[in-house]
């Protein structure tokens, strides 16, 4: 239904776009069903309306999208996040639990109702659950926003949507319990069991010779970035994360989780052969590569069903395209004057429960008792004071219409894909591996028209510098999109223009949103601890476990002193016994 509706809209939009935008409505009932997408393990997955894979949402820019969500999972709360959409004026529809909404407990319903920005939101997006670590259980699908004014619309004949993802045979909840456990002090992330293309394996994509296709690719995995290449076909990148780029050729791309690429692929003029295309999980991310893991998922550009589908050729090395070099099609110039800088030093460490957590500036994210949006809306003038948002939310208050710079220093030997809600940012700098912390006085020149996107890879022990304009009041998360790291707290909360937000949304939170909070028993007013009287009293707020003892604490000193006394006493008795012989 969804697809036919949106196709219909797509067809009539050229006529209507200037007059009135359409509305795309979906009724989604989320429930568990069984599926076996990789053919080796039947497992429960989160389906919608009894189907899995769940439907792709398609719309045209300027459309209103309404999703009536009913949680029929029975055992888990849920939510939906529409990844990459700016949610201008509708931050309460953004989806992250504990940030812009309460969890939607089993049995409750919730309506997402928002408009896709008319001017600058065409492209390839996706939607997924934003409940802790949940979407890898299957609640994820592409979201395509068509554009009748696309600068590339004359360059291709047809569209193909490809989703890439890693896949686990176990459910996320038990995997999260293993991951965040005293038995996993190094924080080794569970390694996927396989990977999927359009939620299946060995995908055939029918193509015709002599045509150009716009291939929209989404990595909707939990963890693994993927190298993607099409054998004997060159990709021409025209869009990343919803931002049109100058067409740029690439033989292989590196797509972290949550990133999207649209590429133009022109088919051969003859149909004599079919060609493999491959998504290969980046095994550098895996702590240990289990024996027998096949990191690759293969699909075929099928020119002719009668011909064989050749196995992909072996590669000597991965040499992916560097997305930092892309140029946005609108040539938006670098914001060269920074009003506000946010520095985030990230690291992994253990807390005194023995579990491994992720930190920004030594703070690991713990969701507050009251969703941050509701705190911002219910605290009046105090909403601009970061204190009220809690001790563990990594909150940053942005003033309106400022150029904001995020400097992220990765003090960890892993690769991390960082995502900012509500904005696409300019990637003004990305260091190589092992470059250490960002030094503003010592870096290569910034590009004059930097690439923009909403999810960016930071390299091991490297750094990135991102800039954006705070022109979108709302509560926006900035976080690593590896679901394991979301669970271990690699999240910052950007509180953008809270006073404007109040005038936008105060008293306009829909009743069904508040009802979900009531159903879940989540307070909807007050500071992070739910205190409405004294918003500076945060007693009872959610906090992380304590830090590890730095060395000798009281009990250690007592133990050491006792041991020393015991040893000296013991030696005294030995001496007494040993020397007593002489006296005889």
């Amino acid at each position, binding site marked *: 239904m969804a697809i036919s509706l949106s196709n219909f809209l797509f067809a009539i939009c050229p006529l209507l776009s200037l007059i009135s935008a359409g509305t795309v409505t979906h009724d989604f009932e989320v429930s568990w069903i069984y599926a076996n997408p990789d053919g080796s393990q039947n497992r429960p997955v989160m389906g919608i309306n009894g189907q899995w894979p769940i439907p792709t949402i398609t719309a045209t820019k300027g459309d209103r999208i309404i999703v009536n969500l009913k949680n029929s999972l029975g055992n888990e709360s849920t939510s939906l996040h529409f990844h990459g959409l700016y949610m201008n004026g509708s931050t309460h529809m953004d989806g992250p639990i504990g940030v812009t909404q309460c969890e939607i407990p089993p049995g409750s319903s919730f309506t997402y109702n928002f408009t896709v920005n008319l001017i600058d939101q065409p492209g390839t997006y996706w939607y997924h659950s934003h409940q802790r670590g949940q979407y890898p259980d299957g609640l994820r699908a592409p979201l395509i926003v068509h554009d009748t004014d696309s600068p590339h619309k004359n360059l291709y004949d047809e569209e193909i949507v490809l989703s890439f993802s890693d896949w686990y045979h176990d459910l996320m909840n038990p995997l999260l319990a293993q991951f965040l456990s*005293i*038995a*996993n*002090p*190094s*924080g*080794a992330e569970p390694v996927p069991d396989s990977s999927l293309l359009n939620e299946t394996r060995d995908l055939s994509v029918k193509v015709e010779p002599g045509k150009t296709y716009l291939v929209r690719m989404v990595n909707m995995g939990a963890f693994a970035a993927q190298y993607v290449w099409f054998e004997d076909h060159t990709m021409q990148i025209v869009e990343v994360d919803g931002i049109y780029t100058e067409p740029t050729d690439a033989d292989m791309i590196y797509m972290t989780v949550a990133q999207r690429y649209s590429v133009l692929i022109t088919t051969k003029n003859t149909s004599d052969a079919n060609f493999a295309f491959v998504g290969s999980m980046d095994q550098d991310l895996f*702590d*240990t590569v289990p024996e027998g893991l096949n990191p690759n998922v293969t699909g075929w550009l099928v020119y002719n069903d009668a011909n064989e589908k050749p196995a992909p050729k072996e590669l000597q090395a991965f040499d992916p395209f560097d997305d930092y070099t892309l140029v946005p099609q609108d040539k938006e110039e670098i914001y060269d004057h920074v009003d506000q800088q946010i520095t985030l030093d990230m690291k992994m*460490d*253990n807390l*005194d*429960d*023995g579990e*491994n957590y992720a930190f920004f500036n030594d703070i690991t994210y713990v969701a507050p008792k009251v969703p941050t949006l509701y705190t911002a809306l219910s605290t009046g003038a105090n909403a601009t004071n970061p204190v009220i948002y809690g001790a563990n939310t990594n909150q940053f208050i942005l003033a309106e219409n400022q150029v904001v710079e995020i400097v992220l220093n990765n003090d960890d030997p892993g690769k991390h894909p960082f995502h900012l809600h509500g904005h696409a940012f300019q990637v003004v700098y990305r260091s190589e591996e092992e470059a250490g912390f960002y030094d503003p006085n010592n870096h290569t020149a910034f590009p004059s028209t930097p690439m923009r996107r909403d999810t960016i890879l930071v390299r091991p022990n490297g750094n990135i510098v991102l800039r954006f304009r705070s022109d979108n009041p709302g509560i926006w998360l900035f976080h690593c999109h590896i679901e394991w790291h979301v669970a271990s707290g690699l999240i910052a909360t950007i509180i953008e223009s809270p006073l404007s937000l109040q005038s936008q949304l105060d008293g306009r939170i829909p009743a069904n949103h508040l009802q979900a909070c009531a159903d879940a028993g989540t307070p909807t007013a007050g500071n992070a601890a739910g205190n409405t009287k004294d918003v500076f009293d945060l007693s009872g707020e959610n906090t992380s476990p304590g830090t*590890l*003892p730095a*060395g*000798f*604490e009281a*009990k*250690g*000193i007592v*133990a*050491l002193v*006792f*041991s020393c006394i*015991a*040893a000296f*006493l*013991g*030696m005294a*008795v*030995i*001496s*007494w*016994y*040993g*020397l*007593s*012989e*002489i006296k005889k």
Partner: protein
Amino acid sequence: MPNVFAVPVFFICFRECLETSIIVSVLLAFLKQTLEPEKDAVIRKKLVRQIWFGVGLGLFICLCICAGIIGAFYTAGRNAFDAAENVWEGVFALIASIIITVMGAALLRVSKLQDKWRVKISKVLEAESTPLPLKGRFKRWAEKYAMFLLPFITVLREGIEAVLFIAGVGLGLPATSFPLAVICGLGAGALVGYLIYKGGNRTSLQIFLVVSTCFLYLVAAGLFSKGVWSLEQNAWVKLAGEGVAEAGSGPGSYDIRQSVWHVNCCNPGENGDGGWGVFNSLFGWQNSATYGSVISYNLYWLVVIVGFAVLGYKERKGHWPLQKPRIVTEKAQSDTSSGQDQAVEKKHAGVASSAVREVPE
């Protein structure tokens, strides 16, 4: 340093060599006293040669046995131990600790061995001068070569004892830690034996023995604690898997739930921290102490204190603390001792008595 010098091995060699050298020194002294240098020069020379020949042969056989055991162990058994390194380290550390504890008590009374052996030897030699018709050929042969057999059997006995002890103690240690410890132990034992032979100051000798015994017990206490620690670490590695080794001495290398103290340095297990390895061998230092390792360390000393107190009591009063009042009920007598203490005392008293069994009263 634990990779080049195994302290327990040193003490075992020291102790066994000391006992051997005391016997040899007694024999030599005996010959010196009984045979006049002018008259019996030839026979004395012959007998001295017998003694050294006995020592040499005994030593040689010991070395053969030792080489055999080591060879068998390092060719066949090593991999089996590697697989569960912490278990073996734990078990062997505990065994080593008990062996040293038992030996240590005897070391304090080692100077008495001189008297014991003097009595024994003179008995043997006296028997030679009083012909008895019922003696068999073997006895006669044995008498003739007493000066060979005594040191030979002694060396053999002490040597095999040492080899077995070292095998027990050293299974968990790297092969490289043996040679230096063995050589030093033998050297020190021989030196002290020589001092005894020279009849030096008996008081200073006893002080020397007391000091070295204290040292020995420090090592044993550390080993005991380390044994418990290793077993706990084994459980932790089983739980936390690969990450433990990866963590070095940082978070994750230890079980926070059991931790009494942890410092991210000074790890005796790491190659860079050599000094802490010595600290670990001597005193059982751990950069990450657990409830188990701390409690076991203190418990060990408690047992040693009680044990020596009981031994001292026995030597002074002539009977065990709880033995005397057989008429009275035990409960009435045990004023301060709890039931657990009694068990500890009994156990330890038993061990200690066997260790000093040869000491004449």
